[in-house]
């Protein structure tokens, strides 16, 4: 029986309301106990976590692994390694692969690939509609049976409200959340960045905040009608945050995630015409960023997810309007969250851990996000003060499209443990291996 003792760290588990220095004992991939003076075998491996935080394994409920179909940009293996290096033990890939994950066949393919090659847990998200074309419902039940934990037409939102209603109704049968990338494609058509002063100045077409808001509004109304579990992906606009808070106050089963880039940067932070700042939703205004940060603090927003979206250099080295949307996010999520939420005291440490653990675990309904006895031994060990610099050229991702290259951070992941195995450790210099 393989056992691992994580010694003397500050163990924070919001699910157990635990916050204090303790040891965590793992045996055969399962948490055996938290405490002092645990009955440890002679043969146990010891991880000295003195001065570090020990938390349930972090979950990123929104990534793009590009496999199958776009393996030149990322694979399940490379994306999982990047996740581990970012402190994540679970990731949920969106279905916009080629072919689209709209059938049990593709879901099974992802599950199998992940079982063989991924160092972290992979929880696939299936498509809402066939080919994410927004018309005919995908084989939702079969995908759930094959391992899908949610459905979404991320990137190609369902524009037809009737189809969305039916999807929500059908998803209820399987008790899975419907995740929407909220963007009215008519309002955002042709847009390359947030609509505002900067887009006007740069002569780029805008993606207005209202293109997100009208879809959030529509979906919340449909969630009320259908009783579905509804989740807003990468929320970025002020009124959208307000509407999610309103839906929650009405007792609806509505949740939301935001991304590190949406609470750390505004449209005025982007380097002009630099595609490493081009993503959907776009970097928005100061007012939007403030609303997102407030939402993260007050519970309107339930989770932080990266929307890790690798694109090869050949696609990002073009005229701004030709470049695809999306940036890497897995390896910088903690660093950015510390710099913009924790260190400036916008939120406390317990809340931060919730946003990466119990928050996404509850939304996806996966048995993760806690160090409770008997739970799978997924653990994220991180530092709050170790300085490090992100070098995107050393990324585990196959792509290099990050606006955070060269940024220095105070605090970040130190070790990632999945099912009792240490799958990644920071180098002793404080940088990444």
């Amino acid at each position, binding site marked *: 029986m393989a056992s691992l003792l994580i010694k003397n760290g500050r163990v924070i588990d919001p699910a157990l309301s635990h916050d204090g220095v303790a040891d965590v004992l793992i045996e055969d991939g399962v948490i055996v106990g938290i405490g002092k003076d645990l009955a440890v075998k002679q043969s146990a491996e010891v991880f000295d976590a003195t001065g570090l935080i020990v938390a349930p394994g972090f979950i990123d409920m929104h990534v793009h692994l590009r496999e199958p179909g776009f393996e030149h940009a990322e694979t399940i293996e490379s994306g999982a390694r990047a996740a581990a290096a970012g402190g994540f033990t679970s990731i949920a890939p969106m279905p916009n692969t080629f072919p689209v994950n709209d059938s049990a066949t593709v879901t099974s393919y992802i599950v199998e690939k992940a079982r063989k090659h991924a160092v972290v847990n992979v929880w696939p998200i299936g498509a809402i509609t066939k080919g994410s074309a927004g018309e005919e419902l995908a084989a939702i039940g079969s995908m759930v049976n094959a391992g899908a934990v949610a459905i979404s037409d991320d990137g190609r939102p369902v524009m037809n409200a009737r189809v969305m209603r039916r999807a929500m109704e059908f998803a209820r049968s399987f008790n899975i959340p419907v995740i929407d990338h909220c963007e009215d494609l008519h309002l955002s*058509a*042709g847009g390359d960045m947030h*609509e*505002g*002063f900067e*887009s*006007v*100045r*740069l*002569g*780029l*077409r*805008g993606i207005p905040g209202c293109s997100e808001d009208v879809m959030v509004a529509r979906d919340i109304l449909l969630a009320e009608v259908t009783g579905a579990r509804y989740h807003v992906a990468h929320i970025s606009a002020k009124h959208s945050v307000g509407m999610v808070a309103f839906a929650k106050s009405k007792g609806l089963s509505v949740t939301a995630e935001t991304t590190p880039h949406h609470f750390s940067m505004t449209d005025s932070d982007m380097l*002009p*015409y*630099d595609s490493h700042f081009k993503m959907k939703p776009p970097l928005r205004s100061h007012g939007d960023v403030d609303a997102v940060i407030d939402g993260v603090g007050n519970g309107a927003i339930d989770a932080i997810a990266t929307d890790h979206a690798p694109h090869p250099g*050949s696609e990002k*080295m*073009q*005229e*701004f*309007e*030709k470049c695809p949307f999306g940036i890497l996010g897995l390896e910088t999520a903690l660093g950015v969250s510390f710099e913009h939420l924790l260190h400036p005291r916008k939120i406390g440490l317990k809340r931060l851990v919730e946003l990466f653990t119990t928050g996404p675990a509850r939304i996806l309904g996966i048995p993760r996000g806690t160090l409770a006895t008997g739970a799978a031994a997924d653990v994220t060990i991180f530092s709050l003060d170790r300085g490090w610099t992100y070098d995107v050229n050393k990324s585990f991702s196959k792509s290099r499209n990050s606006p955070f290259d060269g940024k220095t951070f105070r605090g970040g992941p130190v070790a990632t443990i999945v099912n009792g195995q240490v799958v990644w450790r920071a180098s002793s210099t404080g940088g990444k291996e």
Partner: protein
Amino acid sequence: MRSGLLGIEGLAREEIQAILDRARDFQPKPDQGFRKLALLRGRMVVNLFFEASTRTRTSFEIAAKCLGADSVSITAQASSVSKGESLVDTLNTLAAMRPDAIIMRHAASGAPHFLQRHLETPIINAGDGTHEHPTQALLDARTILDRGTSLEGLRVAIIGDIAHSRVARSNAYLLSKYGAEIVLCGPASLLPPELKQIAPGVTLTTRMKEAIRDADVIMMLRVQLERQHEAAFPASEYFQFYGLRLEHLRLAKPDVIVMHPGPINRGREISSEVADSQRSVILNQVENGIAVRMAVLERVLSGVAAN
């Protein structure tokens, strides 16, 4: 590294003034052609036009020739872009042939700015998407100054599809640096409210008569149908509400001048009567285009700005 000319926004008033002053030296005497000079003999420029253009490309070519420089013109249809080469690779290839500058027009906003980050050869922006058209603003300023003494305090109405106009942006930046009053006017769907923060002295109105009242200069913009991704206004109503007609001129200052960057659409944004009136300086603009571009080429190729 010598610097090119990407936009007006980042230029200091002194730099602009130097170009405008130098352009006057290059203006032809009445009833004469442009003088042929040898100031840039042995220099070479590449004209790279990814978007249709008659006047700007010809103007740059003549300007280069008047200064004794060699110029090569390439259009997108004839270039390797049509074989699927990326813009960066095309520019790197051309740069490897060692031109002294690349003059570039592209339909994507920021294309020259993006390329200049990867390229040593100075780039002169001959219009990028809906962003800037710096030499147009310079030639417009030269044309206004030819009729008056100063840009300071002038009231300039710019009317038309402001949202999609690189001419409007470059002119707003330039005129603002001189303390002019700039009134941007067009249908609300083509006049984003954020424009009023673009430069000091800019105001917005959707009412044409309000824009023209007491104006010293009226700049009409072409209704850019190729940049209209949707119907932002009923096309049939455009001339009625935003077309410049003779009766409008009575509202402006008596010596108002009417400008247009061309090509003009008679009967769409400007009536034939106005285009051909005494108040129109549209052809003076074209002529000044050469003088101003000579000044720009000289500045960029001789590296004056770098000192």
